Structures are given as structure tokens and as C-alpha cells.
């Protein structure tokens, strides 16, 4: 039961990440790539992402300090950042990137700066949540495949979703 409750916890955590819009479909894709041969794939990817994107973040910060702003350069950096973020499924971060790029396009310096602040917030928030999630998942110790939130959520109430997920994981264990 402990296991189950832990699993439930993990599942719930993940679900909330999806619900709150922090993660999107791409994250599920990544999870599907995880298997026995690559048991910590998602965590590795996320770690890599945060490591690499911190460089981009600092680039952006530096560039935003200049005056006047080089929108082209900012846009380029942000493009990279956006690509990275979208590849791990960081939905909110990605949305903020899009906004930032739009500000760049229109040459709105103030908008850029504000958007960047917001982006950093989302970025940090997601990091924390994912760290907690991975920690818990590691504890649970088994591979949970996420049920696609959009397929399950609309159909069933939350409780049922979780049960389904638990059942699924149980089934997997058996297999």
C-alpha cells in the first residue's frame, strides 16, 4: 500500500504539473522513451536542459543590460532557449519565450525585460517542481508511464484517473 500511495503521489504530482500547465505533451513523449535500458532518461534530459539553458539565461541577462537593446541578438538567443524548452515540454516557459520573441520583434524593450523576469520565474518554478517530482519518482523506484492527461482527464474525474494510473502501474509491474 505504501508503494501504491507513493505511486499515487507521484502520479498526482505529475498530473498537477500538467494541469497547471507547466508541462505539455512533449514531456510524455520523453517519458515514453524511458525504459529499462534508460531508466532515468527524463531526469537526465531535464538536468541537461537546466544546465545548458542556464548559459542562455545568463546570455540573455547580459544582453538585456545593454543599451540600446540588440533585439536581433536577443531573439536569436531566445530562439535557442525556446527550442530547448519546448523539447522537454516546458509549456509555460515556452509560452513566455514566445512572448519575449514577440516583444523583440516589435522592439519593445520594456516588454522584453518584463517578459524575461516572468520567464525566469517560470523557469525556476518548474525546476523546483521537477526536482521534487524526480525525487519522489526515484523513491518509488519504478517506472511510471504517464497517462496522457488530455486523454484521461476529460473523461474521468480525478480520482478515477489516479486509480487508473495506479492500476496501470500495477499492471506494468506485473509484466
Amino acid at each position, binding site marked *: 500500500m505504501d508503494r501504491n500511495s507513493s505511486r499515487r503521489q507521484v502520479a498526482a504530482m505529475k498530473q498537477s504539473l500538467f494541469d497547471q500547465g507547466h508541462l505539455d505533451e512533449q514531456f510524455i513523449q520523453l517519458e515514453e*522513451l524511458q525504459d529499462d535500458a534508460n531508466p532515468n532518461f527524463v531526469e*537526465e534530459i531535464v538536468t541537461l536542459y537546466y544546465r*545548458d*539553458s542556464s548559459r542562455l539565461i545568463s546570455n540573455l541577462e547580459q544582453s538585456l543590460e545593454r543599451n540600446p537593446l540588440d533585439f536581433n541578438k536577443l531573439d536569436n538567443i531566445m530562439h535557442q532557449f*525556446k*527550442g530547448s524548452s519546448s*523539447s*522537454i515540454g516546458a509549456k509555460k516557459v515556452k509560452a513566455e519565450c514566445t512572448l519575449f520573441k514577440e516583444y523583440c520583434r516589435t522592439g519593445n524593450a520594456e516588454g522584453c525585460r518584463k517578459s524575461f523576469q516572468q520567464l525566469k520565474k517560470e523557469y525556476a518554478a518548474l525546476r523546483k517542481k521537477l526536482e521534487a517530482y524526480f525525487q519522489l519518482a526515484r523513491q518509488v523506484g519504478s517506472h511510471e508511464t504517464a497517462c496522457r492527461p488530455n486523454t484521461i482527464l476529460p473523461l474521468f474525474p480525478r480520482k478515477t484517473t489516479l486509480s487508473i494510473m495506479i492500476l496501470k502501474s500495477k499492471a506494468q509491474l506485473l509484466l
Partner: protein
Amino acid sequence: MNLSNITTMSTPSSSSPLKSSDAVSDQFPAGLRVLVVDDDPTCLMILDRMLRACCYEVTKCKRAEVALSLLRENKNGFDIVLSDVHMPDMDGFKLLEHIGLEMDLPVIMMSADDGKQVVMKGVTHGACDYLIKPVRIEALKNIWQHVVRRRKNGWKDLEQSGSVDEGDRQLKASDDADYSSSANEGKSSKKRRDEDEDPDERDDSSTLKKPRVVWSVELHQQFMAAVNQLGLDKAVPKKILELMNVPGLTRENVASHLQKYRLYLRRLSGVSPQQNNLNNPFMSPQDATFGATSINGIDLQTLQAAGHLPAQSLAKLQAAGLVRPNAKAGVSMSLVEQRNLFSFADPRIRFGEGQLQHLNNNNKPMNLLHGIPTNMEPKQLANLHQPTQSIGNLNMRVNSSSAPSNPLLMQIAQSQPRGQMLSENTGSHVTRLPSSLVQPTLPNGISNGVLGNGISGASNITPTFKTVQQNSSMVSFPMNQSSEMSVSSFPLGSTPRMSSIAAKGIFHEEASSGIKSSSGFVPSYDIFDELNHQKSHDWDLTNAGLTFDASQHANPLQGSIDVSPSVLVHQSFPSIQQTGQNRNPTSFGKGMFSVGEGMSQANLQNLGQHLNTHLVDYSVKVKAERIQDQSSQINLFPEQYGQEDLMSALLKQQGGIGPAENEFDFDGYSIDNIPV
């Protein structure tokens, strides 16, 4: 259609979606060799994992230059390439062009950018597909279709006389999109690129294994002769075919070759911006051939063999006198060269043609030039829009000097191209070209360039090269070469090796003495010595020859050469101009030297200018070639690619390169790559 088949084969839903359980014997598409290029480590890792999940064999690459060198080293090591669009060291589209030209592999672009223009750009540059990031595994499961499709189309070229033009094959990528999911699963296993591997001549239509006809120098010469006989206006494929009387050649082959040739000609005359913009990658190869063929009849072959260059284009280039017939040499080179040639536009064509004929004669003996060296020069010069005469002189020289000299010229041109050639080509300094060519400094690319230049320089030979005047076209080649140096397909015909060697040599030379008078050049490099054998008789072809040989022997510089070629090319050009049309080897040599040394500063600029104009495409190409470092530079002058490369290469060699490069705004290509 084969939808059902496809379903069985590749339905993602099936457990092993990629295993072709029924259809193909060897479990295709499992084991498909994919090369992934992306500067973002996160994406790269994800793609790698996804592709492995598809049972593909994956090779990861963070940088485009590394990817290019991987591809070049291992010509048949990959089936398909996935590349990101936005990369710091090289634009994804450039990489795409290079690959398409040199290796003719299907390339899929990826980007988070889904704007219409970008996607369109992908299409026009020849990408066979465009994926929007984040990429899903489902999208990757079907990429094998592009491989199969391409192979199938390749066959069709040979098999069906009526269907596909060879020339279109290059653009196949864009066309492929039109095909529905490939129904060729059955063929994929068989067609594993065998067809592309064979650098044979065109006569294998019987086997139908070859996807395309290889337009060797001789073949191209025959083509040119037929065209000239009929007159360009009246040249219709059927008649040309009849006149050529080559067994196994189909009307379609001729038609597509003719199309390329026409494009090349148009390019020479500075035509449609479209060509320049979009088709540069496409055109160049063609152009190159044109240019090259004229010049180096011999080299074309190599180039063709390489298969990178659309053989036809090589031939064309050769014809134009610009290209180095060395198709083999460096496919990349050829492409680059071609581009360069093209950029030179008109001059080349004219030159090429004239040269082609002459060169053809001369080329034979001069195998050195293999590619186009002789042709190149004139063309390149022509391209430079410089007085074609000079080129013509060069060409003439090349031609007249006797076969051996041609190669030398070519070589010289090639070697020179790097720096001098360019300069020379640009103008009247056809004579310079030879000398510049001689300068083995640029072993690879340069030699090519030089040769090309030399050839252009040979414009004296005007009679031989029609386009001699056009020298610029020739010149452009060298420029291409620079980038391509490694490719060696340099129009000059010098084999890629040459280019590499030449590049090296050239660089050396430059460093050492500027361009020692033709003969002097090569000495520094062993390669050049080899070239010397060839001896340019009249010119300092010896130098060029040296370079040429050297380059030939040298392995295609993968990266290093690139640098030099461009640099050299640049340099050569100015020198070319300066020398005027004398064919004096010395002058060339001097020209070259000047290019190398003095030029570096001033010449380079000149070259750059010339090159820029002419080489718009070239430089780009050249740069692309330069795998090594050049990223920064490349970015700077997308158009000046060749120039910069050469220049930088040259400059570096000389030691003064650094500063000189700056002049050009190169960020300092690192000529380091050039193994000296």
C-alpha cells in the same frame, strides 16, 4: 498505392514499427544510418534517444563542420541527415546545400521556427523534409521514406529514359515531398546508395544501377562540341545526343545536362538573382561543371566521379573552363567550385566553353589538373568579371601550353585560386592565375582555385576558351575551391586531395614567400612537388602542378583546406588582376605572392571585393567547406565565403594572415586547419 505496404512496414503502432517485417528483407528501415546535427545538447540527446528507439543507427554531432567532415570522410557512411536550422557555426541551410551537392544525401531540417519563409527556404535549398520542434518520435519513424525515395529516383534516372532528369535529381529533395509515402520499401535495401558510389562514366545505363550519368570531362567536351556545333539556341537534347553519339546516353541525360548548362550560362551572365540566391547550391554544381569542364575536361571526371557534383554540372563547368573536372576530387569542391564558378557568372561560361574545348585537348595530358585548374582559372577570372581576357589568356596558355601545362595551369589555377587566382581572374591577370595557381600554397582548395585562376589567367588562350574572357567564372571556381578545398572537387579539377594539398601548399607558400614565382610555390609542400611533376610547362604551372599533385595526393582536406582555398582564391584574384594577362608564370607567381602576402592586406580586400561580387555563392560555399572553423567567418560573409576562406587561409599561411583577414572582415578564419 503502396500505402498498404507502407502500413505494414512502417506503422508506428506496431510493436516494432520500423522493422520491415514483410516487405524488405534486411529489416529496413532498422539500422538506417542517421546523422543528427544540432547545437542544442538537450535536443540532440532527445533526438538520439528517439532515433535509437526507432532502431536506427545514430551518430550525433554538435557542429555542422564536424558533421560535414564526418560525411566527407565516410562518403557512404550515412543514409540520411537530420539537421537543425539555427546553428552558431554554420547555417543549417548551408550545410544542407553542401550535403546535397557533395553527397546527395537526403537531409531533413528541424527547427522550432515554423514560419512559412523558413520552411520554404528549406524546400528551396533541397531539404527533403522539415520538422517542427519539438520533434515527436512519430515523425522520426518515417524518415526512412526519404532514403528510399531518393534511391528509387536515382534509379529512375538511369532506367527510364523518359522520366526523371538527372538534373532534377538534385532538386529531388523538394520534389520528393510531392511523392506520397514511399512505396519503395522493397528497393531500399538494394539501392543502398550503390548507385551513387560509382564514379563511373555514364555508360552504365545498362546496369541501371547508377542513378545518374556521370558527366566526365570527355563526355562534357563532347557535349560542348555538339552544342557549339548546333549553336546554343538550336541545341536540343535530341540533336545533341545524336551528335555526341555516345552509347548508353539517353536523351534525358542530355536534357538535364543541357538544362544545367543553360543555367550555368545564365549564371555567368549574371542572371536571375534567383539562381544566385536559391540555386546557388544547385547552380553552382552545375555551373561548376560548366566552368570546369571547359577547363579541365579531365577534372570533370573526377568531379563527376565524386558524384557530388552533378556530373553534368561539372562537365559544364569544365566546359566553361571554370570547373575542374575533378568531380571526384571533392565533390564538395566541385560544388563549391561550381558555385564559385557560377558566381563568376558569365566570364566563366565563356571561358569555360572556350576552354573546355581547348582544355579538353590539353587536359588530357595534364591529369594534374584534373579538375579544372585550367578551366578554372579562366572561369574564375571570368567570374570575377574581370577582363576575361586575362583568363582567356590563361586558358589559352593552359590549353596551348600543351596538355601537360594545362593540368599545371589548372593546378596553378587551383593553387592560385586561393588567393591569386581570384585576383587574377577578376581581371586580366590571367597570367597571374597560372602563377597563382602555381602557388601550391593552397594545397587543396587553393590549388583548385589557383588552378582555376591559372586557367583563367590562361585566358590568353582565348581562342581556346571562349569564355576566357569570362575568366571570372574560372576564378570563381578557385574560390569555391577554397571552401571546398577539401573537396578537391575544385573546378580546377584538382582532386580534392589536391585542394587539400594545394591548400596546404599554398598556405605554406604564401607564408613562406608569398608566392614564389610559380615554381617556388610548391616547394614547401611535398604535395606541390608532386604537382611539379606535372609541370606546367609554360607556366609556373609547375607550381600549380605541384599544388595540384600535392593536392591530389593529399587527402582532401576536410576542413583545413577550406580555409585556404578561399583565401587563396581571394588572393589569387587580385593578383590576377594585377598581373594582367600575361601568362608569365612569374607574374603569376608574383601575383600569387602578392596575393598571399601583400595581397593579403590589400589584395585580399580586392579579392574580397571581387570575390564577393562573384563569389557570392562561392564564398558561401567556400566557407561552408571550410569546416573548420570558419563558422565565425562564414557568418560574416556568407557571400564571401570563398574569399574569406582563401584569404584567411592564405593569410594565415603567411603569417600576416591574421591581420589581413581582418581586413576582409574575416574573423580570422582559422587556417589552422590546414595542415602545413
